[in-house]
């Protein structure tokens, strides 16, 4: 009897055991709406949360935490300048179907120390592993060159960020990361994903959303210029002639 009971007991205990091992993440973002309007010069989001056991107590184990904030993807054409006849001009280009408009990653340790390349590629952990979906067939070397170029360009703009050591975990339960948004941040729905990693394996993940949007006058102006081009143009002409005329009048009094 004991002979068949032991494996059965083990089978019953398995979900319990693994359940005890895999934590759950409770993520939160300091603000779910970022409003682009007068006075906005960029902001900093605090991505934080708790690492808990399924029972709800503290995990009491060291996990590596990776936080990724990603903006909506867009189809772009990426151009490369080369020196042709003494002049730098756009000489090569590639089309990418899913370039993230914004991408920031923060982790407790360097990504390469936490997971292997395969896992990093699957979960898109790191600027190296962005899935850009190039259109048409181009060779891998060229593809890698363009991908590196895109990352470089957006790093300068502050739209792609990588902060190794940017996540702080306190008392094995609370994690937090600060991620900066520059003023030129594009609008859309952003996803904030948190991964808990143990021994190179992603053991838990959770996500939440951040809405980056224009509001009020800024939104009205953006809509006005897109949808009512003629009226918008007339307004611009009216403003420029009006201001020129007014200045002439005022200075005539001086």
């Amino acid at each position, binding site marked *: 009897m004991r002979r068949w009971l032991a494996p059965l007991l083990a089978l019953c205990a398995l979900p319990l055991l693994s359940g005890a091992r895999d934590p759950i993440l409770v993520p939160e973002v300091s603000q779910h709406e970022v409003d682009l309007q007068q006075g906005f010069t960029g902001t900093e989001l605090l991505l934080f949360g708790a690492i808990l056991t399924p029972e709800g107590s503290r995990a009491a184990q060291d996990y590596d935490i990776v936080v990724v904030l990603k903006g909506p993807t867009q189809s772009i054409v990426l151009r490369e300048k080369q020196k042709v006849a003494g002049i730098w*001009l756009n000489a090569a280009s590639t089309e990418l179907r899913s370039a993230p408009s914004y991408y920031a990653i923060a982790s407790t340790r360097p990504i390469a120390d936490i997971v292997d390349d395969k896992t990093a590629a699957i979960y898109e952990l790191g600027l190296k592993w962005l899935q850009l979906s190039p259109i048409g067939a181009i060779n891998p070397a060229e593809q890698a060159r363009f991908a590196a170029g895109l990352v470089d*360009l957006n790093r300068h703009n502050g739209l792609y960020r990588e902060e190794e050591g940017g996540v702080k975990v306190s008392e094995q339960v609370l994690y937090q990361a600060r991620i900066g948004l520059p003023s030129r941040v594009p609008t859309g729905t952003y996803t904030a994903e948190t991964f808990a990693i143990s021994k190179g394996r992603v053991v838990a993940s959770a996500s939440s959303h951040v809405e980056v949007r*224009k509001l009020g006058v800024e939104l009205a*102006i953006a809509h006005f210029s897109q949808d009512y081009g003629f009226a918008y*143009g007339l307004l*611009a*002409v009216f403003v*420029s002639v009006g201001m020129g005329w007014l200045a002439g009048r005022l200075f005539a009094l001086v």
Partner: protein
Amino acid sequence: MDVYLPIANLSVNGLIIVALGAITGLLSGIFGVGGGFLTTPLMIFYGIPPTVAAASAASQVTGASVSGVFAHSRRGGVDYQMGSVMVAGGILGTGIGAILFNLLEKLGQIDTVINILYVLLLGSIGGLMAKESIQAIRAERSGVPIAARKRRHHPMVASLPMRWRFYRSGLYISPLAPLLLGMGTGILTMLMGIGGGFILVPAMLYILGMSANVVVGTSLWQILFTTMATTMMHALTTHAIDIVLASLLLFGSVTGAQIGAMFSQKANPVKLRLLLAAIVLLVAARMALGLGYRPDEIYTMAPL
């Protein structure tokens, strides 16, 4: 003072933009040129997307030329007949410019073309102006006046068919010449965000042979309406005019233009021309260097 630009999608220091407008306004007041040739490159240098910079600069030139047109027309310095022919050409030119703009943007060569145009135009016009003003200063010092140039239009203008009489300009020439001239500057206005005054004035003097007292007023008249048409064209095609940016620029430039105009009445015109030539050549040299040096960013992206 941080200002968020809703079309350019970024925040800038408003005072810097106003100051930028004021500098170009001063230039336009002193020299009678629109100053667009300085605004657009400086805005791009500051980090504003090139399309937004070019589109918004045109309205600044409109504002700066308004009071000039009033002043010149009061004194009878505008040939409305000639001006209207040129405006018609200018509007045609903005249409052609819009098509070119679109085409070059698709090819990804708009920036290079704009830069090369700047270098060629500013370099040659600046060189000409410098040469002339140095000659004038020498003549002033030695006391030997330069032999007055015989006012005559270019032989190519004379060969055009269908002549009209332009009384105020003192010309009997084909309207096709000013029409083509207006069209050319219209294309440049659309592409480069400049008014084109520094090209128009010498062209009206030396190619058309207009009498000098109506040249500046008529060129301002043409610039006023062509930049208005450009603003409309951008509003309808590129949707890239940032009205917040344009208002800040305008505020600076209309004020600067008035101050510049007061200043210009006291200064020596020959030395002023030499100064303008130096500024123009400096911008051209900077642009030329930009073409040859390895740029900071090799890669650029545009929405598909």
